[in-house]
């Protein structure tokens, strides 16, 4: 068993090394790296983070307020599932008309992309709290409000985190799509779309790689930091 693990590790290291080298050679050779790429990356990241943070705040807040009651949770579940199955990009044309070709449009699209997933998972977490923990709260004399924030929310944390993880992936996806349709100057999505117009295959591919890279990074880094300090410590992972 140890041998297999070591073998896998070796393979993994080789693969990552090869990918990085190819990536670097490719981009240097084709000279697609002007400092301008940083502007695109930063713009994309900032739009995504903004939309995502709003989605997290409102998603969790609204879920907690609304999800106290079992029946409201039941009512919201299919409706939120419905919204989740709507491709985020389909909102963009309308947003373009309503809020125009602005940063706001892209941020709202990112928000819509992740909001429902976060809300769904938060409500689901609240639904699956161990009944005994809630009973314990009542035995200890907690009032309903205390049960909510002292028991229900920490107990739902694992699921809330799942929602946050999904939210990041969906946000990134929404961002790229929204930028393709709605950005005029900066942004990774815009870049890909524009490179098509100029038949710049190399720029397109390297932009794709950058998109993949950041998508991967965001997914791993952000959440791992939070996870380590909460659910791993509590032994829930």
């Amino acid at each position: 068993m140890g041998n297999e693990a070591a073998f896998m590790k070796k393979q993994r290291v080789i693969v990552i090394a090869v990918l990085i080298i190819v990536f670097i050679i490719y981009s240097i050779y084709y000279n697609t790296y002007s400092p301008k790429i940083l502007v695109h990356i930063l713009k994309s990241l900032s739009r995504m983070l903004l939309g995502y943070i709003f989605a997290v705040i409102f998603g969790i807040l609204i879920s907690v307020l609304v999800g106290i009651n079992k029946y409201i949770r039941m009512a919201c579940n299919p409706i939120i599932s419905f919204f989740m199955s709507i491709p985020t990009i389909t909102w963009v044309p309308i947003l373009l008309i309503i809020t125009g070709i602005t940063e706001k449009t892209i941020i709202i699209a990112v928000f819509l992309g992740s909001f429902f997933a976060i809300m769904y998972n938060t409500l689901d977490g609240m639904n699956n709290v161990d009944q005994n923990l809630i009973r314990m709260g009542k035995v200890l004399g907690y009032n309903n409000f205390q049960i909510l924030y002292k028991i229900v929310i920490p107990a739902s944390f694992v699921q809330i985190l799942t929602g946050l993880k999904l939210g990041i992936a969906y946000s990134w996806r929404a961002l790229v799509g929204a930028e393709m349709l709605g950005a005029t100057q900066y942004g990774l999505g815009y870049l890909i779309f524009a490179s098509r117009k100029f038949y710049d295959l190399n720029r397109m591919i390297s932009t794709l790689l950058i998109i993949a890279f950041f998508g991967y990074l965001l997914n791993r880094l952000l959440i791992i930091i939070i996870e380590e300090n909460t659910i791993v410590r509590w032994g829930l992972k």
Partner: protein
Amino acid sequence: MGVEMIIECRDIIKKYDELIVINKVNLSVKKGEFVVILGPSGCGKSTFLFMLAGFERPSKGKIYIHGKEVKKPGRDRGFVFQEYALFPWRTVLGNVMSGIKEKKHRREIAMEFIERVGLTEFANVYPHKLSGGMKQRVSIARALAYNPEILLMDEPFGALDAQNRKLMQQELLKVLRELNKTIVFVTHSVIEAVYLADRVIVMSKRPAKIIYESEIIFKGDRSYTSGKYLEYRKEILHYLNYETGVKE
């Protein structure tokens, strides 16, 4: 009229839709008494305890504590679950402090009870790192720390292996010494019942009713092997075996 009946259950009937789970149970518990409710698995004894706790209401009949009807859970009745129900996001200390209202001496009081159950070195550990027996000790410490008058225990040692179980039974009696609590304890183990109880109430299969009651009178420390213990055990087991169809 010397001793106070602090728990009174009159004609308790519990139904789930058409299924009668508890059929006319009457029970009174004196202050300071350790009552064990013994019965075969699934007979409804846990349901009865839940009603005492206030998690559920009887379909018919009423439960009184100090003369007041029980309608919901309260700080006068501590509860210990079989599955521990510890808050995984709090340390041992955090869990034990959960019920203590006075902010000032919360830590000291909690530490006192943590010491009582022998887990002093584990005060800052998260529950998932503890064994089953240790978790249950935390659960007991938490229940006792804010000084409820009554302690309700639902097969608390059910998830432990035989040896640990006996250990915990002994620990429990030790911990409860001088605390003068009124305990209602549910189990399906005769050995456990006779060791711990002042009074054993034997319940029938579902629909549950009381088929036998026995005062356990022991002078001094309990023992699993003394003649008296074995006598009580034999007698109670006889009723239980009859209920479950075990041939003697």
